[in-house]
């Protein structure tokens, strides 16, 4: 598949949230999923990916996001590089729930950016 063609898909499943859980939480859990999805290898290829978050997800916590994606931020040299390669979308049909999840993802991205730049939240206040 060429770099310009349709992006590949990585579909997260409800089981990856944990048994009877509606949330993606915990840095170790994120790191574990990263290994399962072989993101270390995927980071190095030339393709683009869409990562789909399953329906019925009530939270995508920064801890999980950082465990799953932070090594990619480092390899792809920050937020721009990461966003050029990966797009994260919710598969939620309920609009209100989807908007809440999108807010979570914005916060996750902010924290990843801060961690990448070695900043604290104070930098965004002052």
């Amino acid at each position, binding site marked *: 598949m060429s770099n310009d063609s349709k992006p590949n898909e990585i579909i997260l499943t409800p089981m990856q949230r944990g048994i009877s859980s509606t949330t993606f939480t915990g840095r170790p859990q994120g790191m574990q999923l990263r290994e399962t999805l072989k993101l270390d290898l995927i980071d190095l290829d030339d393709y683009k990916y869409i990562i789909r978050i399953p329906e019925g997800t009530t939270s995508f916590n920064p*801890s999980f996001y950082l465990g799953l994606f932070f090594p990619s931020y480092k390899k792809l040299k920050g937020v721009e590089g990461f966003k050029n390669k990966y797009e994260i979308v919710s598969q939620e049909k309920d609009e209100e729930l989807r908007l809440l999840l999108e807010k979570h993802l914005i916060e996750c991205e902010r924290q990843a950016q801060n961690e990448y730049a070695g900043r604290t*939240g104070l930098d965004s206040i002052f």
Partner: protein
Amino acid sequence: MKEILDYLFNGWTIEEIRGLVALIMLLGIVVGLMTFIIERSIARYNRKSENRKKWLIEIIISPEIENINKYFEDFILNFESQINELTDSTNLKIESAQVFLLKKAKFISEGHGFNKIFIDTFVGLIYEYDKNVGSTLKNLMVSLTDKYTTSIGNLSIDDKSTIQEFSQFCNFIKSKFYRELFKMVDY
């Protein structure tokens, strides 16, 4: 004694011996001066360090103790009221599973917002002062956020036992938070 001196300085002129004595005296003065400078530097460093600690306690930590306590108390109270609302039998009869899910997501977002302010302001300030302590405090708050998220996210409709469990966890994090905070000032 005279024999030892005769042995040591055999063949030295009186000027040479005077020169040696002057050199030894000069070395003594230099060593004394260096000791004085080093002692002054150490005292200045200690004083500066003490001033920083005093500043940290008086300006940053002490005025915030009440707010930190209130933050943890409010977090528990907020959680309790959210769980009560989620498990209220009257609501459960009329609400669909989707509404239950949406409520959970809204409550989780509220909790995240509550924590974010605390992490970005107070914990951020501590991080600027001491990166190690700041990181530890941030990790504690992240684990509290995660516990809060999973407690609500995994809640089944008739389970209120999570209130006590969360409250205990929150108090545990609070005590660890203070322990780490006061490590910076050797309390």
